[in-house]
Structure formats: structure tokens, C-alpha cells
């Protein structure tokens, strides 16, 4: 069963913006798209660990600020000719709140 944790209000993240969530194993980036979907990904580009939360969000993708790799927010897969994948975590929005799956925190703690 999924155990959801309330981490923030949706409005704390700008549309097409991102914010960080601190965990014991480093930061996870929460992205909000223009149509108010929320995605959680590791905050590190597979290329040179660029901070994805600082990238430009477009559609359901983010462009890494260091070298413009484009990463799908849905799958974590690198788009285009580059290769790689970023870990993604369950996240959802309910009643204007952003919820993360507690299981992912345990997984990251145990890693």
C-alpha cells in the first residue's frame, strides 16, 4: 500500500518551476508543469550531475542547466541522442497539496 506524505502546498512551486526536498541521501527535485502535474526526480543529470531543479521546464521535460540535456519528467529518460536515466519517485497532487510516497524515502535512506 502506498503511504503518502504531505510535503508542501502546490503553490509553493511556481508553474514550470521546481523546488528541492532534502532527504538523508541528498536532494530530490519536485517539478510542477504548466498544467499543474508534479514529478519527483533525483536532482542530478546523468551527464555531469547538473542540478535539474535549476533547469527550464517545458511540456513534461526539463533541460539541464549545465549542458542542455533534456530529461523526461515522466520516465526520467534522457531525450534525443543522449542516453541515460534519472531515478523518478511517485508524487501526486491532492487538494492543492503535494504528496510524496513514504516508501521512496525509506528506499533512499536504506540505499
Amino acid at each position, binding site marked *: 500500500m502506498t503511504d503518502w*506524505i504531505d*510535503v*508542501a502546498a502546490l503553490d*509553493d*512551486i*511556481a*508553474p*514550470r*518551476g521546481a*523546488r*528541492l*526536498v*532534502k*532527504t*538523508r541521501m541528498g*536532494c530530490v527535485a*519536485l517539478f510542477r508543469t*504548466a498544467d499543474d502535474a508534479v514529478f519527483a526526480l533525483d536532482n542530478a543529470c546523468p551527464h*555531469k*550531475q*547538473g*542540478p535539474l531543479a*535549476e*533547469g*527550464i*521546464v*517545458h*511540456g513534461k521535460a526539463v*533541460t539541464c*542547466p*549545465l549542458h*542542455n540535456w*533534456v530529461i523526461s519528467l515522466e520516465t526520467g529518460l534522457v531525450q534525443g541522442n543522449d542516453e541515460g536515466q534519472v531515478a523518478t519517485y511517485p508524487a501526486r497532487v491532492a487538494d492543492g497539496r503535494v504528496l*510524496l510516497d*513514504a516508501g521512496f*524515502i*525509506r528506499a533512499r*535512506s*536504506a540505499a
Partner: protein
Amino acid sequence: MTQKLIVIGAGMATGRALEHLFEADADYDVTLFNAEPRGNYNRIMLSPVLAGDKTYQEIITHDAEWYDANGVTCRFGERIAKIDPVAKTVTAENGDVLSYDKLLFGTGSNPFMIPLPGHDLEGVIAYRDLEDTQQMMALGPDNKVVVIGGGLLGLEAAAGMAARGVDVTVVHIMGHLMERQLDEAAGYLLRKALIDKGITVRCQANSKEILGENGQVKALLLDDGTELPCDLLVMAVGIRPNVKLAQDCGLAVGKGIHVDDQMVTSDPDILAVGECVEHDRAIFGLVAPLYDQATVAAKTLMQQEATFVQKELSTKLKVTGCDLFSAGDFADAEGREDIVFRDPARGVYRRLVIEKDVVIGAVMYGDTADSNWFFGLIRDKTDISEMRDTLIFGPAYQGGTPMDPLAAVAALPRDAEICGCNGICKGQIEDAIADGATDLGAVRAVTKASGSCGTCTGLVEQVLAVTLGDDFVIPAAQSICGCTDMTHEDVRRLIKSRALKSMPAVWQECGWKTSCGCHVCRPALNFYLLADWPLEYADDPQSRFINERKHANIQKDGTFSVVPRMWGGITTPDELRAIADAADKYMVPTVKVTGGQRIDLLGVKGEDLPNIWKDLNDAGMVSGYAYSKGLRTVKTCVGTDHCRFGTQDSTGLGIKLEKTLHGSWTPHKLKLGVSGCPRNCAEATCKDIGVVCVDSGYQISIGGAAGMDVKETEFLIQVATEDESIDVIKAVTQAYRENAKYLDRIYKWIGKVGLEWVKEQIEDLTIRQALVDRFELSQSVYRVDPWAEHVRKAETYQPIANLTLEAAE
């Protein structure tokens, strides 16, 4: 044997007919009479001339060289007094008698003047030719104008003058504007848009009398007693074919000169084309049928077969920011049904009138992108019963899946009009391509398609793509990114001409293929909107690269560097102490002097940014914008203050320039240098803008670079005073902001527009001052310190949640 052709009237129809003749090397010796003292120009482009979007020079279709090359004898400014169809001669005003083998009438039409009392006063004009246009262009913001007539022509005249700041009132006798083309709802939207442009609109207004003083127009009196004061009164209520000459020589004339399907009048050696003709009970005012007539007349003159067929017509209004389209018949009648779509928020209105499963009329306002497709349904009488449910949404929704835009273009018939300004249809473009024109430039050169207002450029390219298939490659450098096929230049032009003031408006109007752009186009659009509408457009932080969004430079490990501004390279011991304290407090690993004479604190953590900014702010320092596509630094030497060679106060000028320009956003980074003498210690001649002080003043040069390319600046102008040098630099910066492609440094931009063009902007003092004014207007919003602003939203720099304390189990 060479035959003699006399042409009466140098209008758009006869101009086109002559082109066809000469292109086919027809054996005619041509004499061209014109009552106006000039040759052929594109009359439908007078509206853009009036609005200031074009100059007269740009709308000339045939110049002296062309007439010369084709051996045309031009008799401009001369009328024909008499025609003798039996002797086959014409008599010119000065008494010259010329014989002809064939005669071509293109006498056009006369504006209809309502015979109101006072209609012959000075200052009562029609809107017909260049003289009328020039009289309207001569008006200034202190003038008042009344336009009688709320049809196409009247509204184009009104909008053109309003754009010049003239106080304009439109008086229309009917209940809504453009009642022949629009229904009430669309008329309402149009009226609203015109009122937004500052135009006063009075519908159901009956003119009674034109009042004057000393023979000069003073006001218009309505029959309800209202007096509308005016310095000029424009009557734009309709046109009448100009048939006097034809009537006098005995040709058959009704409303216009009678012609048959070959454009031949009742005299087999006399032809007629254009607004002066009547064909099958119809007369003509729009350009497309005139061009068709020209084609037919040319063929007839060459003894080739051709038939003129009347077609359905559509109308568009050439008023910036008012997109409307109408075609067919949309009056209410028995057995007719309506499909209506409204989106009040976007100001979009669409109405289709259907009779027996066929669209017979369409009115669209606000979003006319699909108008060609609807027009095709009307003209081809397509049975729409299968797609009735989704018809109103346009071609993209037909057939279940979104239609490939190329398929939509491929489906257009050969006679679908692509370029409205020049009356070019798809078939002509296809023919040009078959003859070897395989890119946009060549098609434009051969057919003139997309050469006028340019809004159809994308469509022309699509015709190229459809016709050439894999052989056609839209040059990769041309489009901004994968979200659009448009170039930076196209988008910039449309943002200005259609007054697009938000990113969704650009995506919508320019047909973006993605929902919200990407990391390539969004920063460019954000800049263009901010440069063109500084007071109306709200900057979008999410469309800025991280450096500009967080006002610090991101480094390879995700930390940031912080650079306080040092005006003109000057600092103080107190500032240095504050920088040292900040470096200690935030454990800055590296402190470096930059290439631009400043101090860089490298390795600051993202969440510490607001705190370090606050400390530096408290010591009197502001952001150095070391990250911006905007002013970076003004590098200086010490000038007359300390240097034995210095000729002017170069440090002082550098500080003034930096205080003037700081905060400004530009297409790319902007670096300046001011050297106090030609020894050039500030290396001003490899900056974007450089000033070298000399005894007699200030030498300003532009277009230097010392980055990916190394370039020396090119000399722009020398001025005598410091104030003038600052004005010149503001003006150059503004011209660069308004015209350059995003991410082009000044030297690349000059490579495209030419240094001469930039010089013209600067040397013309009126243009220069206007650029300075627009620069200051923009800076009134943007000359700010972002650090102080962002300290107030410091929490957004922190993690949104801390889950490190959550139990591992």
C-alpha cells in the same frame, strides 16, 4: 509585325497585364498613360504606408528601370481627352494624336463623395491615392479627423491615422461596422478593438452637413445635432467605376464598362480590366479578381484562349491587431443554419452559415488561421455532413486525428490564394517551383508571394515542402527551434505588427507546435516581448536560464558565483572590506578578479545567495549582472584624473554609462569600454560598444568582440560632448534590442543589417531621439537591483521540505 498598344491607367490590373505580356515576349509597342503623376504601385498597400509600416518606395511595383527595359513609353500625369474607335486613335490632353492597334482600359474607379452640403470644402478628401494618403500622414497628434464610412477602407484609414496619434472619429450610418462583410457579433469585437486603439466609433450616425470656416472644413454635423469638430474629413463610403471616357467614345457601359469573358469591350480592339469593368452584372474592388482579369486580358492580346470566371471572394482587414476574415453569404434566411463558436477571453468569434450541408458563408474574428480552409469549403461547395460536429474547430480536428499541416496545404486546390497582398495562388507558386525556384527567396523573387506583409511566409514554405518533398529543406538555421518553423526575424516582426504581448499569444498566433515552447525558444520570446512591450509584458522567470532567474552564475558543481557591481571599475576600502567579510562568512573558496575589472566570489551555495546579497546590499553594493544577456561592465582607464595622456574623464563617463545602462536586457551580453586616449588602456576597441576619448571629443565604435570570435570595433560616429556620447550609446543599444536576433552579439547583428543602416539610425537626430526615448521608457522599469528584490523571496531559495528526520522504517 509589332503592334501598338495604348494603356490608359497605371493601376494594379494594367501593371499585372503588362507583366504577363512582357514575360511572354509579346510583340507590342506600349504607351502607358496615367492621370496620377507616377507609375504602377500597389494601391492596397497604402494602408501600411499610412500606418507607417511601409514607405511609398516599398510599394512601387514597377520602377523607371522596368518601363525602360521593356520599352514602355510612359506618359504620366497626362489624361486622354478623346478616343476615336473608328480611326483607332487617342487624343492626349496636349493635343497629341496617337494611333493604336489595341487599346486597354484600366481607368479604375472614382471614390464616391456623398453630396452633403459642404462636401467641396478644403480638407474634405477621399482615401484613394497617394496624395490623399500623404495629406493624412501630414496630420499630427493635435489634429482631429472624422472618417465617414465604417467599411474596409474607412477603418484602414482611421486605424492608420490613429497609429500616428491623430484623434479619429469614425461615423457609420449602419448599426455595426463593415456590415457587408461582418455580422453584428464580429462587428462588435471589431468595434471594441478599434476603441482600444483610441478611435471613437459612432454607428447609426447620419451625417447632415459639413461645416466650414473660410472655405476650410471645421466640423461634421449629424442629424441629431451633434457637432464633431475636425481638421480633415475623410469620406470613404464607396467607389464608382470610372467610365466617362468609355462612355464618350460609345462603348457599351452599365455600372462599369461592359466586357465579355475575354475582357473585350463592345469594340473588338478595346479591352478593359480592373475596377472600371462590369462583367456579368458584377463590378470588382478586391485584388484577386483584378489579377485574374489581367491574366485573361494579356492572353487575349496574345491571341491565346483564356476565360475570366468570377469566384467567391473573401475579405481581410489590413489593420494591425484586428484579425478578421469573411467570405460568402451570411445573411439570415429560410433554411439556413448557424454554427457559432465564441471564446470571449481570447476575443475569438467564428460563425459558419450552412445551407443543405454546404457552408455558404463564414465570419471569423480574432483567430483566422483556418480561414483558407473554410474558404475552400465554401468555394468547392463541399458536403460537410460527415464532419459537422467538429467543423467549427477547423481542419486540425477533422478525420479523428490532428491533420498534418502539410496535408492541409497539399489538399488546397491550385487556385487557393496564398499571398493576399499580391494575389498569388498556390498554382503560381507550384509553377515557379517547377521552373526552378526551389527556395523561399527564389519563389519570392519570381512570384512576389510573401514579399509584402510577409504573414504568409510559413504557408509559402509549406507549399515548397509539399511540392518538392524531400528535396526541400528549410535551412536549419532559419527556425528558432523545433517548436516552430518561423525564424527569429519572422516572430519578432509578428510580435510587433500583431501587437502580441504574451507568450501564449505568440504560441497561438505563430502556430507553435508544442504546448508551451522549450528551453530554446522561451528565453528568446521572453526577451522579444520584454524589449517590445516593456510596460505591458510581465517578465517570465521560468523562461530564463538559471543564471538570470537566480541572478548568479551557475558553476560546474552546481554552486554559484556572486559578482557585485563596481561602477566603472571604482571601489572603496569599505566595499573591499565588505566583500572580504562576505567571503569569510559564506566560506567562499575562491575570490577572483574578473576580466571586466570586478571581484568574483566563486562557490557560493544556492541557499546562501539571498543572505550574501543582503550583506553586500547593506554595504551599498548591487548585483553586477555578471550573468545577464544585458549590460555586464563598462571597463575604463583612469583618464584625465591621473593619467598624463588622458584627454577626457573616461572613468566618469564609464560610471555614467554603467548607471544609465545597468539592468537593461539585450539580445546577448553587452560589454563596453571607455579609453581616455588612443593608447586605449581599457581595450575599448574590442568591446560591443567602445569609446575612445580624443582631444576633440568622443569616438564611438561598435561591434567588437573578444570571445568565440575576436573582432575590432568599427567606427560609428564622433561626437563633441559627453552627453551626446551617452545619447548615441543609448540609441545604439535600443536599436540592437529592437532588431537583433536573440543571442546575436552586436557584431553578428551588424553583419546582418549592415553598419550603414545603424549609422543612419544614429545620424538622423529624430530617429536617434526616438530610440533614446524608448530606451529610457524601458529602463524606467528595468533599472533596478534584483538582489534587493530577491532577498524578499529568500524562502524560494531554500528546500521546500526537509525529510531527513523521517523515520527510516
